[in-house]
């Protein structure tokens, strides 16, 4: 290995960044709330659902909601068996379980799609945040909507990061004509009113969370590309790159083994802000009817149904508004603290 010396340096740099990050109160609070949002999304079936966490049914113990959580992990469906008969479509756990049988229900004992008789009910002990136009529990929809926002935030920014890093690093490393052409490409995407592009593409594709993620990912990569390019241009002239080249390393190896690890910091900051933007965009698209389609819950379409029932059930407006605001705020807080921690010189600037 020719870059052994880099490893400990990178580690101590990372530790220094973490120490500086921890010293920012806003950043720590932001990170705590981000972790909380992630846990809500991951554990959604345990917080709100129409299946018990644990119960005794026909003499055997069942853990339907826990198994739902397990199924959310990659390969979870193969590793953990379905909780029959609870996972059968149309099986109503609430009716099937006797009142005196042991059953531990989630704190919000309603599924996000579960329809009840009292539509547009105000908040009460039964329904903490009230119900929507179809009698679905709003709290349950908010909890499961968090899953959408986390997915959209991270997967779309993952796509954006891959595209942005590839284009930015190629432009930055090779320079010259490659750079000129790729820079034009970036300019085309930047000059584009991206919200319009997303709308146009969403009309073309089936509306739905998968396409929303792809489209946001493919339009929001430009600032990642710019930062990667800038870092590559700065770094490629440094001695360790010259040394690697002298030892016969090819461009691909230099780009991804030597340069990229050193260029990741500003990219990470851009991604954090990007997650906030993606959540905002998804909610906006779902509000306009191009994102997640009802009955599937998302904060955007909950807000839309609130807008439709504005005069009858104004209580529906506040939960999605607060959720979107908090999500955007905390990702911005983390992004700011991260930027200050990585480069203390820019601290306090806008």
């Amino acid at each position: 290995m020719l870059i052994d010396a880099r490893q400990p340096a990178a580690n101590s740099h990372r530790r220094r960044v973490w120490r500086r990050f921890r010293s920012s109160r806003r950043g720590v609070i932001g990170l705590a709330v981000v972790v909380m949002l992630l846990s809500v999304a991951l554990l959604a079936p345990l917080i709100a659902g129409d299946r018990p966490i644990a119960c005794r049914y026909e003499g055997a113990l069942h853990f339907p909601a826990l198994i739902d959580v397990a199924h959310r992990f990659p390969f979870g469906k193969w590793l953990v068996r379905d909780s029959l008969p609870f996972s059968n479509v149309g099986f109503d756990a609430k009716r099937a379980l006797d009142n005196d049988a042991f059953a531990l229900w989630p704190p919000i004992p309603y599924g996000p799609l579960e329809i009840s008789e009292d539509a547009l009910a105000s908040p009460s002990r039964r329904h903490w945040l009230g119900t929507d136009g179809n009698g679905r529990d709003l709290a349950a929809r908010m909890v499961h909507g968090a899953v959408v926002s986390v997915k959209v935030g991270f997967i779309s920014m993952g796509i954006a990061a891959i595209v942005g890093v590839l284009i930015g690093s190629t432009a930055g490393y090779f320079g010259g004509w490659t750079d000129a052409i790729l820079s034009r490409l970036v300019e085309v995407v930047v000059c584009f009113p991206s919200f319009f592009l997303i709308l146009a593409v969403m009309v073309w594709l089936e509306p739905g969370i998968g396409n929303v993620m792809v489209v946001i990912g493919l339009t929001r990569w430009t600032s990642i590309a710019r930062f990667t390019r800038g870092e590559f241009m700065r770094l490629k002239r440094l001695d360790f790159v010259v040394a690697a080249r002298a030892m016969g390393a090819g461009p691909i190896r230099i780009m991804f083994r030597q340069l990229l690890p050193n260029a990741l910091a500003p990219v990470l900051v851009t991604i954090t802000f990007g997650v906030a933007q993606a959540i905002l965009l998804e909610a906006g698209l779902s509000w306009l009817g191009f994102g997640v389609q009802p009955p599937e819950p998302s904060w955007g379409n909950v807000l839309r149904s609130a807008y439709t029932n504005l005069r009858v059930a104004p209580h529906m407006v506040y939960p999605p508004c607060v959720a979107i605001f908090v999500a955007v705020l905390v990702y911005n807080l983390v992004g700011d603290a991260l930027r200050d921690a990585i480069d203390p010189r820019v601290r306090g600037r806008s």
Partner: protein
Amino acid sequence: MFRYILKRLILAVPTFLGITVVTFAVIHLAPGDPLDRLVDESVPAETSRHTYELLERHFGLDQPLHTQYATWLRRIVTLDFGNSIPDHRPVWDKISERLPWTLGVAMLSMVFGLVLAVPIGVRSATRRGGWFDSVSGTLLYALYSVPSYVTAMVLIVIVVTVPIEWLPIRGAYSDGFDDLPAWGKTADLFKHFLLITICFTYPALAFQARFVRGNLLEVLQQDYVRTARAKGLSDRRVVIRHAMRNTMIPLVTYLGMLFPTVIAGSAILEVMFAWPGIGRLMFDSILQRDYPTVMALSVITAVLVQIGTLLADVSYAWLDPRIRYDGGMDHVD
């Protein structure tokens, strides 16, 4: 400098072509046919197919895609945006009757934003770390993170539930606006502009105040500010005469650059407030597959963004001779 501008203008040509090709492809390849709505379903199939073919030929939609693009490009050089498909009106007429509403809100919000942001920014920069700085900093930060459509929803709900009956939440003017006397018109416009202008103003305000503060802090550390202080000038004079000038120029330039983005970003708010502006025109045109209108709007926004970016870069280079550009992507934002 002249060479630089020329180079940028030449480089703008491929960008322009790229944007138009992408828009053209996306909107034309999207499923759905603008002519479907025009053909009357009730007449016999033979007649309606004939009408359809006539319409197709009329709008040139029977040509292959690249021929259609070439025709469109030839027209655009003479600033002819063609006719809208659903209502046959010239696209330019449709845009120009919507433009004042969007521009009006955008201008108002920028002016209000500046009027409020500059004093806030100056005060927090000159008394850095004081109570005003930390309170306004936290407030502005929170404000900056509230999406404007979320604010719009909350405002609308408040108006509906309180209820504030004199405050309209939809449209830009009342029915029978034309019959109102002059003062009535003014009052009517004011009422309609109020909410949507608030929603456009506060994100701008939050951004501008942070920008002024950050820039001013940097400028106040410069040698010439120290010189001015050493000459015995008052703090007030140093800030207003010496430091502010070099803070305002980047701010105004940046706003110029941001302006087209504000217009393009207005779609959700305009739909929420049923505002007759550009954002909603774009939204409706996409839904109706009104190819000429969508193309025209994309081109206009793209060109505005490019002009804004170029002006910003040129004025930066003009102000700061140390800046030299190589035509890369650093200065594109």
